[in-house]
């Protein structure tokens, strides 16, 4: 059987033509509006309360729509955007250092390795300046200069200083801003909040999204909620790897269920693997923790020259150390981009020169910086990060080098959306990390927060009105056959999971699936490995449905049941990721195919054959590939080099 078939190409019919800097204005003018008096007759469901979902629900509420907001946590403030550290980009040019909307646009298209849409990225750069204004007005405590004006810093290898930040907790402060705006709307009665609720199915009637089925995670009640439009802001799917920097609860279920109902899934293989994470310490590991990339400004990355060298780092003399990034990339050294640094770490570990438990780590050494700058200066710059490292590992980075290893951090792929952020199911919108959006094959640092808030505060509220202006929509009752059927899909699946009563825990399957994905669909992918992974994933999935053990019942708080449902969807996603990675025989951004590299081992793009978005249609069997051709009128495609 073929792994996939190819269908008709797909086009973004909402993207306006004309000069790129005028397209967003044009689209806003071209879209229809909804009279304020009519908005309260229209309802919108928003799933997820991170930067995208929280800001969207708050803004839609302010506009006067009736909003239902859902999150699986006990409070909307806990969504995983809260953990973002570094900052948020905006083309304010407050530094007078040559920044502009045009430059942010250019940097983001290039950083995405020429696999994103020009129109979308340009709009993102335009909207970036409004985001900072909005967040400051809400009282987000950004870092300030002595004169009281906003401070910025450089980030992710760009040459301007455009990253606004709130210490190492920018995501937390931005999310609390959105959360407070959301709670204000809850108090105003425009938003109804459903915490500890998990979306388990999309309700589609006559091809149009009309609601969701959600499980009350406290009582187990299966509820149906209908509305005039549905917005998914449910985040990324990095937890398919089991170990990632995502929160434990992050999952693909909301978007995957929508995919099964007809929404195309775009570029699922584009995964960002972050180079500076704390390595796994043992089999018990449940998640990985990121250490800010800023550490590479002063830390030197090395491994022993000899394989299997088990001496303590201090006992290894200078001439027996390999500062491999400085050696291989003399001009960028330790500051090469994320994807390059991650792959280089993997390759030295594959050679048997890794350090720490299992040989899966490399040193990030501050000895030279401490000697050069003094201990106090290093403590001032990185003190909180050193503390966090010590808390987790029990080792003091002032005394012994840090050990770091790459970890899955962000997923660029997601549900396909048009310029209006509408999926291929009318009435279903997808925002934030959940869509495939603006990052192409690689996301630049400090761009995730920008995109989440751009979508939620400014893009979606302006584009969804064009769809909602088609109302009033026919009312859907709980007894509608499509609603009943969607509910039955959910209850059948839960009953099936509970009835297997096998001999393996849900987590044991998740760990095994994650290890497979990391090995074959992680930092380096090959045709042979991906085929092997596909075979093994299918076997494991069959085993899961035959021998998983889910204790307890549905009508209670049942965390094992929650996990099992998410893992079942991860199995299906994993397969699609491998198919996508297999079909994309080029290397680009976070997707490195060993067969497609330059003679000196760098990623080799194939623009002639792969300059398209791969949008996949669910069939239950081999998926169907729909290609969206990518055209570059404003940015010239070139090969990236960091030598």
């Amino acid at each position, binding site marked *: 059987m073929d792994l996939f078939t190819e269908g008709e190409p797909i086009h973004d019919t909402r993207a306006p033509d004309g000069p790129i800097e005028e397209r967003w204005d044009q689209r806003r003018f071209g879209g229809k509006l909804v009279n304020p008096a009519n908005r309260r007759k229209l309802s919108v469901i928003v799933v997820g309360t991170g930067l995208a979902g929280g800001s969207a629900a*708050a*803004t839609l509420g*302010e506009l006067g729509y009736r909003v239902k907001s859902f999150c699986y946590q*006990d*409070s*909307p*403030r*806990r969504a*995983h955007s*809260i*953990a973002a550290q570094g900052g948020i980009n905006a083309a*304010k040019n407050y530094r007078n250092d040559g920044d502009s909307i045009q430059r942010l646009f250019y940097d983001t298209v290039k950083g995405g390795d020429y696999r994103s849409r020009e129109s979308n990225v340009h709009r993102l750069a335009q909207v970036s300046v*409004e985001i900072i*204004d*909005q*967040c*400051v*007005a*809400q*009282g987000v*405590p*950004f870092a*300030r200069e002595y*004169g*009281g*004006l*906003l401070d910025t810093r450089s980030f992710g290898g760009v040459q301007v200083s455009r990253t606004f930040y*709130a*210490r190492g*907790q920018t995501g*937390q402060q931005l999310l*609390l801003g959105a*959360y*407070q*705006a959301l*709670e*204000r709307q809850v*108090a105003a009665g425009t938003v109804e909040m459903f*915490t500890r609720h998990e979306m388990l199915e999309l309700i589609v009637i006559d091809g149009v999204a009309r609601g969701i089925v959600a499980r009350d995670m406290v009582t187990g009640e299966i509820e149906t909620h209908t509305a005039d439009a549905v917005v998914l802001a449910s985040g990324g799917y990095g937890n398919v790897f089991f170990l990632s920097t995502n*929160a*434990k609860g992050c999952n693909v279920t909301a978007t995957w269920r929508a995919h099964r109902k007809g929404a195309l899934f775009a570029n699922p293989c584009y995964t960002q693997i972050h180079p500076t994470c704390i390595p796994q*310490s043992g089999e*018990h*590991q*449940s*998640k990985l923790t990121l250490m800010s990339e800023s550490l590479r400004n002063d830390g030197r990355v090395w491994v022993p020259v000899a394989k299997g060298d088990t001496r303590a780092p201090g006992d290894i003399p200078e001439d027996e150390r390999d500062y491999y990034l400085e050696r291989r990339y003399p001009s960028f050294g330790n500051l090469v981009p994320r994807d390059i640094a991650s792959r280089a770490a993997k390759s030295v570990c594959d050679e048997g020169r890794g350090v720490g438990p299992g040989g899966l780590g490399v040193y990030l050494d501050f000895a030279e910086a401490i000697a050069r700058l003094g201990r106090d200066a290093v403590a001032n710059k990185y003190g909180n990060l050193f503390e966090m490292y010590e*808390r*987790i*590992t*029990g080792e003091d980075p002032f005394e012994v080098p840090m050990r770091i290893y790459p970890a899955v951090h962000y997923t660029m792929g997601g549900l396909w959306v048009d310029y209006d952020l509408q999926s291929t199911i009318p009435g279903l919108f997808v925002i934030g990390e959940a869509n495939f959006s603006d990052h192409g094959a690689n996301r630049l640092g400090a761009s995730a927060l920008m995109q989440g808030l751009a979508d939620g505060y400014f893009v979606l*509220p302006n584009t969804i009105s064009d769809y909602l202006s088609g109302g009033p929509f026919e009312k859907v009752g709980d007894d509608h056959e499509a609603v009943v059927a969607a509910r039955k899909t959910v209850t059948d699946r839960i009953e099936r999971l509970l009835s297997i009563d096998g001999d393996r*825990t849900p*987590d044991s399957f998740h760990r095994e699936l994650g290890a497979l994905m990391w090995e074959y669909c992680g930092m380096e992918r090959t045709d042979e490995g991906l085929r092997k992974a596909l075979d093994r994933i299918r076997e494991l999935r069959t085993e899961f449905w035959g021998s998983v*053990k889910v*204790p*307890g019942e549905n009508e*209670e*708080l049942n*965390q*094992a049941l929650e996990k099992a449902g998410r893992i079942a969807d991860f199995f299906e996603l994993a397969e699609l990721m491998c198919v996508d990675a297999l079909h994309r025989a080029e290397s680009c951004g976070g997707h490195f195919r060993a067969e497609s590299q330059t003679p000196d081992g760098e990623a080799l793009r194939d623009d002639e054959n792969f300059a398209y978005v791969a949008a996949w249609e669910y069939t239950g069997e081999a998926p169907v590939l729909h290609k969206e051709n990518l055209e570059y009128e404003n940015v010239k495609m070139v090969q990236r080099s960091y030598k």
Partner: protein
Amino acid sequence: MGMKLTLKIWRQKDGADKGRMVPYELEDISPDMSFLEMLDVLNERLILDGEDPVAFDHDCREGICGMCSLVIDGTPHGPQRATTTCQLHMRHFQDGDVITIEPWRAGAFPVIKDLVVDRTALDRIIQAGGYVSAPTGSAPDAAAIPVPQADAHDAFDAATCIGCGACVAACPNASAMLFTAAKVTHLGLLPQGQPERYGRVTAMVAQMDAEGFGGCTNTGECTAVCPKGIPFETITRLNADLLTAARRS
């Protein structure tokens, strides 16, 4: 060689159940495990033994989401200062230790199951006024509102609250004063927060009372257990604002 531990864990099937402490023996616990990973090991075993695994709240496991919430040996978030439960590691315990694990205890935080409690009362305190009314699109240019660096710094210190509720769990009165004061301080120190400053503090304190949280008697247990080290002075600031608000009304 791993550690051997005895856990005494609060088990409570649901809100109606009376609840009890149940002992569990664990062997071969690695000192490198986090506290929650140690509970993962227990739960994997309980599932295979056909027993109900222990329910506990957690999500980011990196100390920032505020979801984890265990009272360990009588202290919210356990023995290590300025550290959430999820960031606490087993190397801080000894082989042979007996560890008691309980949920947050407060009338305003009813137990849902085992170690999971309902903290939505904290969201309702924010709904009462823990925000700046700045609808999307209405903002002036960000540079138009200068904020003295020291004020931004102090506002940030208060804004780092993760809303976990440890302050309530530690307080003999189960007061949510530190949580409320952190938000009042964050917004009250910034120019953006001035127009609503006195209405905010009055409404948030009223909501805190309505939720059944106790009053503050300045015992300071809240600050001692706060994983983010929210300063006790924030409560002084809240009281000052509350007094001014009363005088103005």
